[in-house]
């Protein structure tokens, strides 16, 4: 038994060390096809997160900070808000769930020091596993103890592998000098974090009846976010951005979600406020095209002025 325990105690650190080493070598030299569970994507991936996180480090004291999923970075156009006199920054990221929002707030809230936070709430983000968003943040931001905490909470092999590789890249400054193109395919990164899609249209589709799952794991993180924002005395506005009306009305418990959100503070559901068309104002079932963005943002600005006065 003594020999077995001794071997095991020696074997475990050897395995850990060798595993870390192999991940770094694999990440560095192997082509993408061989990296199934190592998802370290930077330039040109996940909706301009690399540019956004690079830019955020240079921004201070904004009027409005936008948080949320891809609906955020594709839905709140900083230029429109600037014209209305608001300095804004968009910290949305792909499939961002409250767990990642909290991590980003812990990293950047003090520096951005916003007067108001507009937090995009989409029912699905409360049930999301947040893996995609975590990978996005690990690959595009400097990793710290918060990243380890996030990885442990999610306990997913892709996150562990990518985090190991991320730490290696950070430690050896392997990402230094990398730049993301402003224009990437149909997407153009706009300073302030917005990602503009070349104008395209969607089509009318009928969806089967559906129900939002309102019992996701992410609610506790959401409440922690609200607590943090309250502690810092920042105005908070919860916003549900528009999705295609056909998709929205296929869900039978929209009101239940609205009621739940209203219980947390100021909340606007723009699916009920603006009148949009599935084809003319969207490029997919739940992302606005630029025509839709303009209508939505102008209406939101109106609401902001109403609150101000």
């Amino acid at each position: 038994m003594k020999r077995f325990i001794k071997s095991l105690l020696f074997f475990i650190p050897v395995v850990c060390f060798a595993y870390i080493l192999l991940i770094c070598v694999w990440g560095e030299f192997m082509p993408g096809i061989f990296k199934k569970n190592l998802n370290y994507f930077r330039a040109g991936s996940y909706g301009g997160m690399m540019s956004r996180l690079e830019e955020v480090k240079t921004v201070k004291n904004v009027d409005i900070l936008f948080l949320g999923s891809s609906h955020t970075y594709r839905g709140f156009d900083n230029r429109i808000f600037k014209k209305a006199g608001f300095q804004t920054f968009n910290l949305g990221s792909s499939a961002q769930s409250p767990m990642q929002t909290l991590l980003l707030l812990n990293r950047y809230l003090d520096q951005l020091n916003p007067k108001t936070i507009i937090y995009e709430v989409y029912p699905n983000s409360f049930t999301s596993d947040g893996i995609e968003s975590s990978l996005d943040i690990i690959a595009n931001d400097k990793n710290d103890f918060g990243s380890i905490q996030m990885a442990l909470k999610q306990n997913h092999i892709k996150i562990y592998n990518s985090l190991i590789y991320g730490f290696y890249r950070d430690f050896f400054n392997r990402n230094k000098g990398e730049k993301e193109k402003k224009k990437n395919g149909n997407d153009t990164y706009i300073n302030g974090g917005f990602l503009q899609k070349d104008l395209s249209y969607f089509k009318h589709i009928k969806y089967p009846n559906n129900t939002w799952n309102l019992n996701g794991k992410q609610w506790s993180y959401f409440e922690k976010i609200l607590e943090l924002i309250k502690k810092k005395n920042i105005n908070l506005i919860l916003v549900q951005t528009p999705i295609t009306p056909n998709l929205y009305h296929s869900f039978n418990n929209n009101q239940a979600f609205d009621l739940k959100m209203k219980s947390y503070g100021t909340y606007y559901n723009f699916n009920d406020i603006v009148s949009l068309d599935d084809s003319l104002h969207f490029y997919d079932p739940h992302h606005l095209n630029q025509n839709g963005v303009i209508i939505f943002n102008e209406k939101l600005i109106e609401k902001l002025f109403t609150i101000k006065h």
Partner: protein
Amino acid sequence: MIFNSFDFLFFFASFFILYWFVFVNNLKLQNLLILAGSYFFYAWWDWRFLSLLIASSALNYFLGIYIGKTQNEKHQRYLVLIGIVAGVGTLLFFKYFNFFIDTTTSIFSIFGVQLKLATLQLILPLGISFYTFRSISYLLDVESEKIEPTKDWIVFFSYISFFPSLLSGPIDRAEMLVPQLQKNRTFNYNLASEGMAQILWGLFKKLVIADNCAFVTQAIFENYTQFSASTLLLGSFFYIIQVYADFSGYSDMAIGFAKLLGFRITQNFNYPFFAQNIAEHWQRWHISLTSWMTEYVYTPLSFNFRSLRNKGIIISIIINFILVGLWHGANWTFVVFGLLNGCYFIPLILSGALNKKRTIAKDKLLPSIREIMNMGFTFSIVMLTAIIFGSKNMVEAFGYYSQMCSLSLFTIPPELKSQIILLMLIMLMFSFEWMSRDEQFGLIYFRKKLGRVGRWCLYVGLIFTIGMYMQTNETAFLYFKF
């Protein structure tokens, strides 16, 4: 609490410490710990069915004692019958009740009689097929005086519920496991380290091969009408590999965990894809079930039909395989699957090649052309028959086959390119298994040949491969539903 979960890791680590450090000098307490651990492990899944397991164990324990006590053969037979009826009856109720009702209703509807029989919403108690077969073999072995009935209830209850093999086998015989439970166990370094290696090999097969194959086959089987014939062929290839890697991977882990506790349990797979005919394939596949069926079904049947000579053997084999098929579940697909497998034996019986023993590539690195052709042919029929096994019903199975019968069978499946890595990993698995084909599991050859550094490099490589290529959408072990 599946083997490849953190829950099980914590459970087993705590169990291991108590087993080898706290209760090591007291056999009774060690067995009691096995029993308590097994019940805890079972209750983690569904505590409601724990009472069924306990009741089944208690009944068979007392029956075993009475069978041993009575000298009257008739009484012995009645007691065995009570055990079989109780075990099979419970199995029939939970597993086959709805199947029986549906079939009866369908048969009557053919004759224009519309029966309104209600089916029940039954949950299949996990592992019931496995522990029922274990109990029955115990009673039959006691009756035939192959083994003495055990009077130690802790030993007997531990034998029935031994947690490494409780949920998906192997179906250990009492003559194998009970004596090990009755004698003091000392920690054996070589056995334990071999167990660790076998668990690692099982994990590789389950997480990397089976789960990745499942990801592909699920999509193909559920939408088979949308794919080309060659893709369906590829799907059937991945499906048979999935079933093998999933079940043999589970068995490897079960055997490995048992070795860590100082037990040697039944080998369940012996590289079935290296078999050169279907008879050999079934001697190598799910060995604990096929040997059980051979001993308690096929042998008595063929004895009764011995006057019919070859016809008798054919009938016995076909009945045997229909029952093997039905053991997997209440569905006509399993009946047809069993029937077909039984029929594949007919040419072997008629040519007298049924019991011919052949060792593949004996003392050679590679098989001969003839052996490759035999293996390829056997694999092909097993693979094509498995389509029935994997289909939800016979209509879907026929649909799958008819979709496969088109000229697009001779095209390169478009999905092949995205599955190159998986194919490479399958090749890797078979290469390891080929090298270890005379041993118990795929890593043994290299464990013996390599020094400590080499072995550790091999383990690190496997752990890394698991980390890099495991399927992240967790899938349950296939044989849990049987």
